[in-house]
């Protein structure tokens, strides 16, 4: 049971927030993270169109052998992605709380530009309280 990392992807597919909390996954450069986030954005767009019965919210959980990624899509198109171990059961609740922190500490902050990388101490503090400090 571990939470490895959190990504926030804006509605255009850009990675606006990335933070690691535990070891277990390969360390990547920031550029590689950007590429992965963009790829995930594309995959998500495809999965949301695959549904045979009308609209779909797209992929919600992607599981691999050693980890899984849980995706929360907000109504505004922002995606919150949590990378966790397979046994982690709290991923979707944590994501809901991350969304809440995002609404409170990012969207209400006059010094944040929408769709731009998140540099808000308030958000960092809220996330640290929620998941743990880890290392950035």
């Amino acid at each position: 049971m571990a939470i490895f990392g959190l990504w926030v992807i804006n509605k255009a597919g850009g990675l606006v927030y990335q933070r690691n909390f535990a070891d277990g996954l390969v360390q990547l450069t920031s550029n590689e993270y950007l590429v992965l986030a963009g790829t995930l954005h594309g995959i998500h767009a495809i999965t949301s169109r695959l549904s045979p019965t009308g609209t779909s919210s797209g992929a919600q959980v992607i599981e691999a052998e050693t980890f899984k990624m849980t995706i929360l899509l907000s109504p505004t198109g922002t995606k919150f992605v949590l990378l966790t171990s397979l046994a982690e059961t709290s991923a979707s609740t944590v994501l809901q709380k991350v969304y809440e922190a995002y609404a409170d500490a990012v969207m209400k902050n006059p010094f944040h530009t929408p769709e731009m990388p998140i540099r808000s101490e308030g958000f960092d503090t809220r996330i640290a309280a929620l998941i743990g400090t880890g290392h950035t």
Partner: protein
Amino acid sequence: MSALPPSRFSVLSSPSPDLLSPTNSSTRFSLPSGPAIATATAGTPKPLSRPNIYDRPLNKIRTTEVSASAFAFLFSEIVQYMQKRVSGINDLERRLNTLGYRIGTRVLELMAWRAESASKAPKRDIRFLPVLMSIHTNVWKAVFGKPADAIEKSVQNEDEYMIIDNDPVVTRSISVPRDMSQLSCSSFTAGIVEAVLDGLGFPARVTAHNTPVDDFPLRNTILIKLEKSVLEREELFK
């Protein structure tokens, strides 16, 4: 609403051209998935079951509250709007102060009116300390729904007093970037205090300063610097 809505209102992760067409302005409210929201009725407000806030008796709305989120979004937009129109941090603080001042005069008016109708023999404080106490409790409760956390008197300067708020409602969701670290958006609160003091006949210069401590990173101090005339008058009362 003929123009294309600004991109920040577009809520789709993968916008399709048809949904972004200018003729279909309801896209601003639509969700990528889930049940459709009826936007057709948005233009015609339903008849209110009770009178709006302007028509209700002033004393009855004493305990009604506004949404902190709604205020936070409004205040955020105010700060962004002003930031584009000012030359520096001092100018921004001055404008926030002015804005608070306009609210403070109304707060004082309302509180005086309520005090008058609530007690048989309402009195007006003419000494500074009771006034400071009433700002700390009554004004804070009326405006923020809780009393401030502490009052301090400056050790170095006779004419300086401080009101301390550990978790100011106004700046709760604001993270000031490092390059503007001197900026305190509580200047808005300082404006309210300044107006109340002015209205009661205690002209002062009121400023706001960030004074974070470990437990309260948002802690804020409202610094009141009284004018000489006030101190001289206080002397005469003794």
